[in-house]
């Protein structure tokens, strides 16, 4: 089995509400992904 990267291991330690923010970033280390997620979470529903 492939060993988890440090980022993936870190992600596993987070509570779900924090995972929600950086979940997409873990798969794609792009700042834009992080920023877009932030905007999506703050956008009025």
């Amino acid at each position, binding site marked *: 089995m492939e060993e988890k*990267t*440090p980022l993936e291991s870190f992600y596993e330690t987070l509570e779900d509400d*924090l995972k929600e*923010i*950086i979940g997409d*970033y873990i798969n794609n280390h792009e*700042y834009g992904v992080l920023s877009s997620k*932030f905007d999506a*979470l*703050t956008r009025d529903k």
Partner: protein
Amino acid sequence: MRFTNIIIRGFRGFNEEQSLSLDRDVVIIYGLNGSGKSSLTEGLEWLFFGGISRQRLSRCRSDYQYEEYLRNLFYIGPGNPFVEVKGILKGKPITVKKELLKKGQVCYIDGITVPDFGRLGLNLANYFRPMLAQTEIKVLVDSEQKDRWEQLSSILGQDELTILREDLIKLKREKRDLEYKKQEGRYQSLLDDIERMPALAPLISPLSELKTDALVTEIGQITGVVSRSFQEFIPEIQTKQKSLLNTELGHRIAELNLGDGDKLLEFLGKLENGIGKLETLSVVATRDGYDLNHLDFLTKGMSIAAVPVCPFCGEHTFTDEKSKTINEILKAGEKAQDAITELKTLKNDIDISIANFYGSGKDYFPERRDLKIIAQKLLDIGELELARRIQNLDNTIAEIIEGSYNNLSKGKSDYFDYLDNKYFHNKPADDGSLRRLKGFIAGIITARHEVLVDWEDLKGDLTKTISVAGSAPEEQIKMWVILEKLCTFFASTYNFVKITKLLERLDAIQENLKAFEKRELERLLNKHAAEIKAYYEMLNPGDKIQFTGIAVKEGERRQAALKAEAFGKIMNPVTTFSEAHSNSLALSIYFPQRVDRNYTWETIILDDPVQSMDENHTQALIEIVAKVSENKQVIILTHSKSFYRRLIARFRYLKPLVYSFFYNDDSGPKISLTEGETPSLITKIREEVAKGDPLSLETASTLLRKSIESVCVEFLLDKGYSFKTVDNKKNAGLKDLLGEAEKGGFSPSDIGRLRSLLDITNPDSHAWSIADTTVGFLRSGMNTVNSIYDVYLK
């Protein structure tokens, strides 16, 4: 990335363009010191990492200025010096090239100019260099602890955590933009207001925690309004405010400060009194016709004429009687002088009083600031006419104060002129000035009285509309104003709550990350120390001195120190290891860090790694390299003939590319491609025999003897004999060497064929030479050795 070819021109030891194929799993480069082989490593270093270790690690870095040291000393062109590598990256062929300009450099990928090689996706940090340059070996051990920590942090794959940390910081900074900061300021201001207002204490907790539902509930309880949103509160709060504002206005009207009339009377009385004294003093100052100029003349005359007897004729020109008369006149004039002094002081006081009136005049009249507020509030509630009348009254007061000041100033000046002209200059004087001045003073009192009468009239009209009863509801008004601000804020900036809560979650991620990094790095560090230890033990089996781990020192900047142990004592490898142990430890650090964990590079380049190694260490290193060669391309450069031979023997099964850098001159290194020492010797024999002259044939004879020796040595090493054993046999002489080769597997007939080439007239001699030096014999011998090489070693 793995390499298939390298072309170098005009760089370091290379002058003329040289192209070397590297398209093999193992490439072995042999060359004596100074033959130019390290320039090859440096070319690869400069191409990918922008600098060479020799310069990077030098203590004389200023000697390496302007990149001139990279250009070959004899290079004259054409074109710029360059290094170009062809290779395979992620399964696709790629060409990477860098040209050295007079200033700077140009990078190319597949012929296209690029700013750098970042897009290749290779690890390009110094501590991921796949090449181990000679100058680096010692530095891997002998480096600063803080630098080691930073390198380890990156090598252990913590970079992505560092990038996340930086991305989180960037995200917070970007999302806390100017608009958000303004909202944050308003929010903080609201929190401060509410904390100062006891009646709103129940709001503090839900507001500081941004619990909007709880906040709505609490506001509902305070206001008595049932609402589900902040927006719905606002009209109710505004109605309440209006009612309270009317009450507040009435209170302000009732309590209007009318100014201090007594003080005005006191001020004007003093002023009038002072003015009244001026004429009396002027009379005294000029009584009996005392002319001030005359008195001054007499005083000066007395000082000049105070000589009782003429020094030349002895006559009494200035008699005592004359002196007495003058002194009496002057004495009588003293009273006039006192009056003049007092007059000046009094005039000055009057000047100051009138000047002060410009600023203090407002204190004697109804408070204009309050009148303005009342007027504004009347406008707010739609009482336009009353507001206008208040504004008129305010304007009247302003005009009275300014007019009174101007009148007093003008009247005073006129009266002072009257006194001067009448008493001191004997000029015509304006007798009406005092009367006018007194009129101005009386006018001020009258004007104030009229203002008060106007105000009373106005107040009477105001009270018809505004109730002036009750106490001031300032605190209540403030409370409702704050509540309105609060509801407006949340009704208009609902996103603020979301952003703030999300930013708080980012804070939580950062905190978690900080703790995780610390914990994880220590865990990985222990794991990595075990990797180093394993390599060290492979290179130093059974050695009493052992590498034991990496100690982390906490502090503002973390540090990592290497640890070792010998005979139960802890030791610092940096300060205590021998050159050989340091070399082993450096390689033990290099392999896990820059080979095993260096995932983007599929090549390693070792430049003379056996500098001070003995045979056991060398053999251990070869075995490590053999293991590495299972996964990566290996390029090894060495000046050691024995290491070179052992490498060829060990890697023969991989058919390595073998190059000899046999000498170097101003045109660059001379490089030959060979598959081993024996074929190389055969080639040279062929060249010498072809020349045919006696001296060449003699040389060919010597080379043939060496080729017999070489084929035996290579065969034995290939069979796994230790180099030491083979070397001993070689030194003992061809007889022993051939005997050992026979034991190792050469057939008796082949041994016989080799022996037939030698002069064995004296069978016990250790210095058998070639039996004949004729062209035919040498050709036959050359073919014999070549065929045996082909059978056993090709």
